[in-house]
């Protein structure tokens, strides 16, 4: 029986394991998911934690309960991958052998890479979101700055979404006129997806969000409350929300499988790690220059599940990831936008409407039932 080891029990790892468990013939393979803490976290909910609208505990589930019974689960940290020996070394000295390995270890946050980051808040972890929620509750006016500490970072629209939701939040609290909202974009436009940039620029104008382009955080001075960019500009803040720099997981870096940022060079259609015929990569861990998003990890996970199932069956794998990503953004005031795009087709500027806002709310509710279980 072939052994399939999946590193990481987040979006991508769960979809691969459950989809493959459905597709493979019984007895063809043994699937083992390895996750560091055994917890699965629904990260799109972090934004709503910051606004005091979402209970943090509801965003975390035990990964075991999301996996099919036929899938084994090991709660341990993978420390090193040895592709020559086809072995994964776990913390505490245990080893797991594999025939196929799937790396779905997501991204790791590095606030320590920005000098002075302790002067900022963020919403890219559960703890960070709770801290930001508490700071926002106490905040009564001044300059609120949203900025990015390094590219690439996951969910590229999230900082813009946060600025829109802060406009809504301060309006509801009746203090919007006391708050100056500033959005510092790391790119040469306000929104990462180019075809949507005019729409988002217009939305920011209407919401009175001041924007600066080409601002990549270099350092923060918590004493004088200033943030400085790689490009040499300085902006003052009273409350700073900064996206921490990201890298691939330590296990990828320590195994020599990543590029300089720890992202794994990955074939964009087969999702095989380049130079390795038996290692697949899904989700944030790849170096493919498309949005690092749960939707990306989900669609990639289905393709990798199909590829491994076909190979176990002696068939040629479909290798057909086409770069598909679908993404819902909340623009505040119960309006949203939905975008779908792939390698060949950039997103078509969508209308801003209530239906897409409701779409986002529906996914937030149905996520646990549908996505990690690979039911869609």
């Amino acid at each position, binding site marked *: 029986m072939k052994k399939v080891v999946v590193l990481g029990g987040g979006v991508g790892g769960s979809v691969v394991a459950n989809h493959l468990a459905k597709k493979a013939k019984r007895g063809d393979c043994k699937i083992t998911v390895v996750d560091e803490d055994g917890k699965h976290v629904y990260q799109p909910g972090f934004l709503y934690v910051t606004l005091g609208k979402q209970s943090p505990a509801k965003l975390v589930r035990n990964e075991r309960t999301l996996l099919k019974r036929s899938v084994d689960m090991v709660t341990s940290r993978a420390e090193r991958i040895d592709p020559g020996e086809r072995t994964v070394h776990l913390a505490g000295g245990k080893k797991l052998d594999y025939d196929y390995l799937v790396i779905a270890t997501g991204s790791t946050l590095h606030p320590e890479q920005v000098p002075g980051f302790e002067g900022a808040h963020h919403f890219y972890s559960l703890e960070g979101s709770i801290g930001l929620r508490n700071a926002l509750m106490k905040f009564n006016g001044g300059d609120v700055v949203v900025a990015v500490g390094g590219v690439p970072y996951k969910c590229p629209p999230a900082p813009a979404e946060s600025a829109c939701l802060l406009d809504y939040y301060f309006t509801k609290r009746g203090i919007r006129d006391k708050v100056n909202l500033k959005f510092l974009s790391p790119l040469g436009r306000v929104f990462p997806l180019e075809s949507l940039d005019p729409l988002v620029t217009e939305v920011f104008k209407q919401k009175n969000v001041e924007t600066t382009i*080409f601002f990549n955080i270099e350092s923060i001075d918590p004493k004088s409350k200033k943030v400085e960019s790689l490009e040499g500009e300085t902006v003052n803040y009273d409350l700073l929300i900064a996206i921490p720099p990201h890298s691939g997981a330590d296990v990828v870096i320590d195994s020599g499988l990543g590029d300089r940022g720890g992202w794994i060079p990955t074939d964009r259609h087969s999702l095989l790690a380049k130079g390795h015929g038996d290692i697949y990569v899904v989700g944030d861990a790849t170096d493919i220059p498309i949005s690092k998003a749960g939707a990306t990890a989900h669609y990639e996970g289905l393709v990798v599940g199909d590829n491994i199932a076909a190979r176990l069956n002696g068939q040629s794998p479909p290798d057909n990831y086409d770069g598909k990503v679908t993404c819902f953004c909340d623009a505040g005031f119960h309006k949203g936008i939905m975008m779908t795009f792939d390698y060949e087709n950039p997103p078509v500027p969508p209308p801003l409407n209530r239906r897409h806002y409701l779409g986002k709310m529906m996914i937030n509710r149905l996520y646990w039932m549908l996505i990690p279980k690979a039911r869609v």
Partner: protein
Amino acid sequence: MELIRAVKEGEVGEVIAVWSKDAGSQRDIPLWIEKAGHELLAVNEKEEYNEFVIKKLR
């Protein structure tokens, strides 16, 4: 933009080549290099993409 990541991770004095084929980056790359205070050494037009050669100055 991949270029920002490459420049941030590079050493001062290092020469970095970036290949780009999308229209947005063709416009943004020279603008960013100027704003960030680096040097654009060359733009080499290839059949499928343009190659931007940049020296990290600070």
